[in-house]
Each structure stands twice: as C-alpha cells, then as structure tokens.
C-alpha cells in the first residue's frame, strides 16, 4: 500500500532538496566572491577540491573524521587567502576577461596537480551518517540520515553567512568594502583584508560542499569532482542573480527540485539540458538575475 510519504512526488521533492542544497551552497560561494571582488571564480570548484584532498586525505592516517573536516576547512581558508593575495589582487582594474582567463588557468593547474599527487582514481569518503533511506511500512521515503545532514548543513552555513553579513560589525565592513571601497578605506576599514576574508569564506563554504559531494558513495573524491556541480551552481547563481546571496540560494534549491523531477520523469541526460535552457531563458528575460532589483549601470 502506498502512503503519500513514500510516493514518487515526495521522494523527488526530498531528493531535489538535497541536490538543491548543494547547488545553493556553490551558488552562495560564487556570490560571496563576486560581491567582494567582481570576479566570477571559475576555480570555485577546484580550490575546495584541493582543500578536501589535503584534509580528508588524513583519514588514511587514521585521524578522526571530524578533525579531518576541520583540517579541510583550515586548508580552504589558507587557499582562499593565498589565491586572493597572489593571483587575484594584481587583476583588479584590468579588463574583465583577464580574471576569467587566470581563474580558468588556475582551475586547470589545480586539477592537474591534484591528479598528479593523488591520481585520478576516485577515493571513497565515509559518510558521517547512513546514506540509506529511512523506511516507512517497508517503502523508502527518499530521505536518508545523510541527506538530511546535507540539507541541515547547507541551511546552517547559509544562516551563518547571512547572520555574519546582516548583524555583525565585520559583516558591515565586508559589505561596505565591496560596495564602496574608497569610502570604506577613508572610514578606517581595512578593505584589502576584507576582500581576502571574502575569498576565505567563499572557499570554506566550497570545502563544506566538496566534502558533502565527495561523501556520496557513487562519486567519491576525484580531481574533476566539482566540474559538473560548478556548472549547476553557476546556473543557480546566474538565475538568482550574482549580487544576491538569498537569491542564489533560493534558486539553487528550486533548481535542484525541478531537475530532480526532470531526471525522474524524463531521463538523466535531460537534466543538464533543461538547466541550460532555464539559464538561457532567464538570462534573456532578466540578465541581472530573476531575484535581484535591476541596477543601472555606471558609465
């Protein structure tokens, strides 16, 4: 007997929320960097991938799971700070294709180094919670302890970022540095540090995402782990608006649910096609994102 909770629709919605939480996190990390430094970071998937290898690699030396997660986050902070200082800072004020090209080069080099050091063979990461769906009357509900953990983690990270930006002094300084660097500097904000901090936060959000993605039994940790996820995260961020953290997260979650239905009712190849069509249509309708107020462009 089918109950509503085990029906195909509920199962798709729950699965979609899990994927959508991941897309939302990637979109959020893109927005953080975009707002701080006006760079669309094409290495946004590769930098956390590298941090995850550094941290979670310690599992093979029998370090405890949560310590490895902590090391990954520290590595992500370090990589984010270094990248901003060394690679991104010289590019401010240059034509807009320069940072794009540099970040693509960075993506190539990070993936190549990761493959050279750790090989391209997938590494399985243990999931901290069971990835097997809960049962109800002998039927799976489409939600496992691990996917619930993914959704909760995503919500906590998003909440933390929003709290940081909206309600703390540091958040105010971060927003001010992004919007009006000159004025902020005059008022005593260390703008350079704030931009670095933006990159650190973004890479750390990315590292959380990468660990969640790599804990999936079917993918494991590979150098190209985030390529596909990055595309979905970018689509979510572009549809929601690169300037709006809330918009990016919302559209990530909605995108996840829509695509879950597409994958279930059509086929798995159609997922990225539908995502691409959504992106093209939404960019044609509102180039600056569906969930932002349109801004006039300064000349």
């Amino acid at each position, binding site marked *: 007997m089918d109950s509503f909770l085990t029906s195909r629709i509920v199962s798709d919605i729950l699965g979609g929320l899990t994927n959508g939480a991941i897309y939302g996190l990637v979109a959020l990390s893109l927005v953080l960097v975009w707002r701080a430094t006006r760079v669309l970071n094409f290495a946004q998937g590769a930098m956390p991938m590298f941090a995850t290898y550094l941290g979670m690699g310690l599992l093979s030396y029998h370090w405890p799971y949560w310590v490895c997660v902590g090391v990954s986050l520290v590595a992500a902070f370090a990589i984010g700070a270094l990248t901003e200082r060394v690679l991104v800072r010289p590019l401010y004020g240059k034509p807009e294709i320069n940072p794009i090209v540099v970040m693509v080069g960075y993506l190539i080099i990070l993936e*190549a180094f990761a493959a050279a050091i750790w090989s391209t063979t997938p590494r399985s990461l243990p999931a901290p919670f069971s990835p097997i769906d809960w049962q109800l009357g002998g039927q799976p509900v489409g939600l496992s302890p691990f996917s619930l953990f993914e959704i909760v983690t995503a919500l906590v990270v998003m909440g933390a970022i929003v709290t940081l930006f909206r309600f703390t002094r540091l958040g105010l300084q971060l927003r001010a540095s992004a919007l009006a660097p000159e004025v902020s500097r005059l008022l005593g904000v260390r703008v350079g540090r704030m931009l670095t901090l933006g990159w650190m936060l973004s890479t750390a959000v990315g590292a959380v995402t990468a660990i969640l993605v790599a804990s999936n039994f079917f993918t494991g940790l590979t150098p190209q782990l985030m390529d596909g996820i990055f595309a979905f995260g970018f689509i979510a961020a572009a549809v929601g608006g690169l300037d709006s953290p809330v918009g990016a997260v919302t559209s990530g979650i909605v995108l996840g649910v829509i695509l879950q239905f597409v994958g279930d009712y059509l086929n798995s190849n159609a997922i990225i096609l539908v995502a691409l069509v959504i992106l093209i249509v939404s960019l044609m309708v509102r180039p600056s994102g569906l969930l932002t107020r349109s801004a006039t462009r300064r000349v």
Partner: protein
Amino acid sequence: MTPLARRGAAALGAFAVAVVLAVFLAPRASDAAAVVVVAVVATAAGFVGSLPRVRAERPALARAMLTVVLVDVVVFATAFLSVPTDFNLATGAGMAIVLLGLSFLTGASGQISIGNGAFMGVGAFATAIWANHHATTPIVVTLLISVAVGALFGLLLGLPATRLRGPYLAGMTLAFAVAFPAILSSFSSWTGGDSGLQLPNSATAPHWLVSLFHAGTPTLTTDTLWLTDVIMVATGVAFFFMANLFASRTGRAMRLVRDNDVAAELVGVALPRTRVIAFVISAAYAALGGALWTLLNNSVSPATYGFALSITILAVIVIGGIGTISGALIGGVVYAYSTNVIAWFVAQTGLNPQGNLASQLNGIIFGALLIVTMMFSPLGIAGTVRHLRQRRALARE
C-alpha cells in the same frame, strides 16, 4: 634601380632558380611540372601582393595574394613531409581556425567563450551525420552545411549575449561545454552514442595527385597528403576572410564595442547585433575546425569534444595571443606540437612516462602558461613580438 624593379628582379631570380632546380633535380617530368606550377604561382602572387600600389589601394587583393603564397608554399612542403607530420600539421591547422574564431570574438567584442570545444563538436558531428545520410555530397558542400549548423547553434546560445555583460557569457558557454556530452547522448540514434560515427567512405586522393608519386606509394600517404592540403586551403580561406573582416567597417565597429560600448552606441553601432554577429562567427569558425577534424580522422568520437577541449582551446589562444590573427596561427602550432614537446621533456628528465606527474604535465604547463601570460603579457606571444618590434623601431629612430 627603383624598388619596383628590384622586387621584380628578385622575384624573377627566385623563379629561375626554382625552375632550374626542378628541371635538374626532379626525377620525372611530372615532378618538374609540379614544381614549376608551385613556383609560378608563388612568384606571381608574391609579386602582385607586394606592389606598393596594390598594398595601398587594394589591401584585400594584397591579403589574398599573401594567403596564396603561404598556402602554396605550405602545400608544396607537405608533399615532402612524413605522414605523421602532415597529420599533425593538419590537426594544428584545424585548431588554428577554431582559435581564430575565438580570437575574433575577444578581439572584436571583448567577451570570451569557454564553450568553443562544444561548437567544434557541433561541426564535427554535423559533418559525420550528413555524410552518413548523403554519402555523395561533395566535401565543400558538407563543410558549408556544418558551418551553417555551427552558426545556428551559435545564434541560439548567442541570443542572450545581446544583453549580457561581464562574465555571464563565459559562464553560460561553460555550461554549454559541460552539457555537450549529455546533448550528444540524448540524440544517440543520430550521433552513435559513446562510440561516435565513422564516415561512410574515406576521402581519397584524386588521380592527378597520385600520379605525381611513384607507383608503389601507399595510399595512406597520398590520402593523408590530399586531406592535409584540403585543410590547408580551407585554413587559408578562413584566415583571408577573417583578415578582411578585422579591417572592415564591421571590424572597426566591433573593436569600438570592445573598447567602449557606450561610445560605440552613441556613434550609431547597434550593440546587440554586433555582439551576436561576433559570437555567431566564432561558433561557425569552431564548427569548421571540428568538421575538418572529422574529415582528417575519418571518424568522430564524443570523447574528443568534452569540457577539457574547450579549456585547452582557451589556453592555447591566450598563449598565442588572443585578439590577434597571428596569435591563432601560433596557437595552432603550439597545439599541434605540445604533445611531442612534453613527451620529449619527459624523456629528457627521466620521469616515468606512465606516472601520475607525466600524465598531468600537460595541464600543469598549460595552466601555468595561461596565468603567467595573462599576468605579464595579456596579448600572448603575438603581442610580445609586436611589442618588441615596436620598441626596436623606436630605438632606431
């Protein structure tokens, strides 16, 4: 002696030497005839193209003549090179066409595409699909159809580009590159799924070309030579067309859009149309490059046209010099020989060729070059050479 007379004398001298060499060194009459034809074409085109009046008043004719000389010399040279070298050069030439399209997009509109590997795949599969359904279509027509299909895809994706600014177009083309393998397998009844497609009949060299060779020459040699030469001619035509476009009114309007789109709009350039045209042309060029690769390989495989190819295309054109015409040629050569150079480097340093590091060296070197180029010399090799020449010219004055 006037410069004109000097040039004429030099041309006649070179011509005479070539003919004498041909008559005395060529083992057979047909060889000698081929050399004479090559020499006549090169001298005549070179002479006309370098006339000061032609260069000043008919720049398009001068460019056409320069193209004829280059293609003529390259085609002549390919007859003496080994089959692997010819194949390598032809692969590089196809890539150079793709690079030229991307170089034009950036040089003309200031935007960048990370999805040109996928547009290349569109052209490559269009050629294979068409050839499998209409085996009798001449090569030129098949190529034109593939270019048209590539342009159509470019138009579909380029429509939002009319209003896009900044990195949105780059991100969207990246999504297209990531989605392309899924697009191919969605239409697997046409595209052959994972195994790709074979061409129904391979391109064979015409009789007059075969007759130039000794009777026992393997058909692989003559067929590869024929395909290489077809690709070289196509490359020449593509570069000639692009050089004219760069210099034309449209090209000037596009450069203004790149440098200052507000000013461009004020002087009456239609921004949306200009941007879309630039994007469509770059997609069409990519499709032509892919179509030529299908002809050369006699088959097409979806694995070739993944995300990695799109990134490689971007890396190679940036190293060569994005926004320049010569940068595309340099990039094509870099692409054709990068594998050989890296293999040589691995052999020299004694790395394990099957090891992790050796297999990733390609990515490490390309990634590093990409970053270094953008940081220190954004116009790549072509831009650096131009800069050095200008400096020397200034120093001389």
